Structures are given as structure tokens and as C-alpha cells.
């Protein structure tokens, strides 16, 4: 009585075949990532050691470690964050909570989307023109970080605005009905309930900033420096540029060195992404709506 008809059986087989096809395509997607990581680990793994992180490059950059590049990247990313996060979050709060729906607001939104699509080399030229030359910062951490900040600002604004708008209208209405001002609503209800989204956006910004080369190349990163930067006015080495240099600019580099640098760089990005995922799931578990 309840046996499947031959037609149902055929449909089920067809569905199973489609499911396998989709699974196959999905696997194709992860394959390149897996292969890249595997090659990096095989070829760069031997270069890794504690000393690799704490030593300076030696023998015309054909040996030694990556210490100054690592520190330099921390400088660049840190200063870029200090510049972009407050501006980005403030802009997102304005756009999401205060801005009237008019031509100016739409123009700003359009500009943000377009800014996100500008190639990084163009940002680099902008950085040279604006920060290095016009504002007379010279090639320095400050100029390079501000260039990175401008480049990642749209990401911060868009992701922050989206997390703010994900806060249910009912919460805002609850605040309004208690006579809270707009700012009190933002401060006590909207921001605390969008923190995880904002944080995720910021971490993704960092992971993008870590790997960028073009924007810092002409604005503040150097091939080699014998000393660490002492402030934001100095130039610095950086991981991404260092990889470019040891991979293409210096003769006689043993093969595991550039692969080692690449492995550390990719490791940093993956670690940051992992942190952002952990953050998000933990904060998401805490809230229930």
C-alpha cells in the first residue's frame, strides 16, 4: 500500500545525483585553499622556528628571521585600526540611526560602496598624494596606516551599519516608550546588541589589512631597515612587503624562506578569521532573539 512508485524511485535517484554534484562543486571550492596551505606548510614549514620570529634578516636577507617585519605589521595594523574604527563606527551609527532618508544620505551610501570597489593601488596613489605629500607626513607609518584606514573604512562602515540595523525595532521602541533619547537608545541598547557584528567586521578588516602590499609600499614600508621604528613618524618593514622582497627582489634566497614568510602571513590571517568566528558564535549564543 505504501510502496514507492517507480516514478518516485527515479526522482529520488535524480535528487541524490544532484546532491552529489553540489557536494562535488563545494569540495572544488575548498580544494585550492587546502592545496595552498599544504604547499605552504610543506615548503615553508622547515623555515619555521622560534628564532625565525625573533631574529633579524641576515646575510643580505638570504637568512635569519622576520622580527622587524612582524613588529612593523603590528604597527601598521594597530595605527590603521585606531584611525578607522572610531571614524567607521561613528559614521555607521550616523547613517543607521540619525541620517534622514534624503539625497545626501543616498549619495554618501553610494560613495561608500564605490570606495570599497577602488583597487588598492589607487588607494596607494591617493595615500602618496594626500598623506605623504600634501599633509607632509613623508613616507611613514602614519601615512601608510592612514592609507590602509581609508581603504578599509567602507568595510567597517558597511559591516557596522548592518549589525546596527539587525537590532530589532522592538528594542528601539521599548526605549523610546520609556522616554530614552536617541543617544541613550544607541548607547544602552543598540550598540551592546550589535557588538558581535561590529567586532567581526573589525577583525575582518584587520585580516585584510595584514596582507595588503600596494597601499603601504609607497607610503611608509621599506625593503630593509636596520632598526625598529620608534614612532609613527618612522618608516617600517612589513610582512607583506618583506614577502614580496625575499620572493622576487633578492638573489640567492633559499626556497624555504619566502614560503616561511608566506606561511606566517597566511597563518595570521587565518588565526584572525578564526578568532572572529569564535567571538561571533560565543556572543551569538549569549543573546536570544
Amino acid at each position: 500500500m505504501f510502496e514507492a512508485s517507480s516514478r518516485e524511485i527515479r526522482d529520488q535517484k535524480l535528487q541524490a545525483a544532484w546532491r552529489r554534484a553540489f557536494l562535488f562543486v563545494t569540495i572544488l571550492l575548498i580544494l585550492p585553499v587546502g592545496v595552498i596551505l599544504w604547499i605552504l606548510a610543506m615548503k615553508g614549514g622547515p623555515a619555521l622556528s622560534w628564532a625565525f620570529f625573533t631574529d633579524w634578516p641576515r646575510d643580505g636577507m638570504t637568512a635569519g628571521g622576520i622580527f622587524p617585519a612582524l613588529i612593523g605589521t603590528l604597527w601598521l595594523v594597530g595605527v590603521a585600526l585606531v584611525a578607522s574604527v572610531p571614524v567607521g563606527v561613528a559614521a555607521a551609527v550616523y547613517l543607521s540611526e540619525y541620517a534622514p532618508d534624503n539625497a545626501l544620505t543616498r549619495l554618501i551610501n553610494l560613495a561608500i560602496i564605490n570606495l570599497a570597489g577602488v583597487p588598492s593601488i589607487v588607494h596607494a596613489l591617493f595615500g602618496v598624494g594626500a598623506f605623504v605629500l600634501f599633509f607632509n607626513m613623508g613616507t611613514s607609518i602614519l601615512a601608510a596606516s592612514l592609507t590602509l584606514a581609508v581603504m578599509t573604512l567602507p568595510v567597517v562602515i558597511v559591516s557596522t551599519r548592518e549589525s546596527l540595523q539587525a537590532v530589532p525595532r522592538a528594542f528601539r521602541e521599548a526605549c523610546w516608550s520609556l522616554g530614552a533619547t536617541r543617544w541613550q537608545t544607541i548607547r544602552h541598547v543598540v550598540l551592546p546588541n550589535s557588538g558581535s557584528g561590529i567586532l567581526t567586521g573589525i577583525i575582518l578588516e584587520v585580516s585584510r589589512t595584514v596582507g595588503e602590499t600596494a597601499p603601504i609600499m609607497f607610503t611608509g614600508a621599506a625593503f630593509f631597515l636596520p632598526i625598529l621604528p620608534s614612532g609613527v613618524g618612522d618608516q617600517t618593514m612589513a610582512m607583506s612587503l618583506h614577502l614580496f622582497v625575499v620572493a622576487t627582489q633578492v638573489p640567492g634566497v633559499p626556497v624555504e624562506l619566502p614560503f616561511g614568510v608566506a606561511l606566517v602571513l597566511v597563518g595570521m590571517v587565518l588565526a584572525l578569521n578564526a578568532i572572529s568566528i569564535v567571538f561571533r558564535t560565543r556572543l551569538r549564543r549569549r543573546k536570544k532573539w
Partner: protein
Amino acid sequence: MDRGAISVRDFSLWYGNFQALEDVNLESAAGKITSLIGPSGCGKSTLLRSVNRINERLGYVRTSGDINVLGHNITAPSVSKVQLGRRVGMVFQRPNPLPLSIRENILFGWKLHARGDDGVDMEAEVVERALQEVLLWDRVKDRLNDAAINLSLEEQQKLCIARLLPVKPDVLLMDEPCSALDPVATEAVESLLWGMRGKYTILLVTHNMAQARRASDDCAFMLMGKMVEAGPTAEMFVSPVKQETADYIEGRYG
């Protein structure tokens, strides 16, 4: 004018180009429950949300006419929405506790407005008094730090009423406060409202004829943005003046 009275005079409201209220008039006596009835979309919520002016936060809303609360014209430009929100509390259709603990929900409005007057060390007393007033204290006194969202819907709605009380409002606006609740919970909230009569002036929007009849002193019937008829509930349900009112009460409208 009576303290606590709401009086709406020739009030109109537009959402953009759409006129949602047209020359509405309403008198609501102090300490009484006035129910607002009418078919869906007739502007009940809009009228209610005009009394504490939260409609205006939408940005594209225009109004004309006056609304007096406690004898003061609240549409005047000098009126502070913060002070208004303090005097006029609102409860929504779906219980909307903030994603905080029970205690923090009660203290939220109080911290914004009244803590300066009452003193910081009053917290525990404020929480207890508010929860006692909505008959919730005995049920939640041992879990004040639990998330409010874990309460039952009835308890959540009572909490939403309770959190208005510490700032000492005079007027409570209720937008279908029972429509998300089952009959037993509805009855509990209704009898709570009936018990709060006298102390607060309550404006109650409802779709439920029986509720309007049971739980209000006066009743106002709206249709398509206009006030059709208003008067004592007992009279209106027995002998409505207008034909539309009679049709609606007898269930001939949607």
C-alpha cells in the same frame, strides 16, 4: 482641566503623503480606561503613538491639531520628548522586554529619569515595588537576574507594564496588550489593568469587543482615520448612536 486627562483636538497625521488620521477628537477622563476600537488599519495605533509622539521618530510624519496631556499641549515645540516619555508610558502588542535581566528591565527607565530623584540605593525597593504592582513579584523574586526573555509571554507583558511604573507615569498607552496572549493570560492582564485604574489614565487599543466591553469605562470607535463615536462603554455597546458603530460592534466589519 482634570489631571491625567488626555484630550485630542482636531488632530490629523500624515505618513508622507498618506493621511492616517483626520480631525480626530477624543476626551479621556483621568483615572479611567478608555478603549479604542475599530477595524484594522483605521489608525488606532497611530493615534496612540501620537500621544507620546514616538511616531515622529520615524522622520516622515507630519501632524496638525493639538493633543493635551495633563492639561499641557504636547504638540508644542517646547515639549521635551524625554519628559513626555516619562509621563506617558507605552506597552506594545508583542511583549518587548529588552535583552537584559528582569531587574535591569525594571530599572532601565528609572535609571534614565528618576534615579536622581530617588537615590541610587533605592534599586532593590524600586524593583520590588514595580513587580508587586503588576502581581509578578512572588513569581520572579528568586530569579531577578535571569534574562527577561525566558519569562512566559504573560509574564513578559506584565514586566513591560512594570518597567513603566518606576518613573511614575500618569498615562499608560496600551496597543493591543493581550493579542499575543492566550485567554487565561489575557484575563490576568485585563484584571491587572482594571486594578490599575484610578491611579493611571489608560488608553487601550483592542480588537476584542468583549475586552473593550469588560475592561473599559469609555470607548471610542474609529473608522478609516476618523473618530466615529465615543462615549461611556456601557451605553455605546447597548445603544450606539451611529450605524457604523452598530455594524462594527455586531461584527459586520472585518
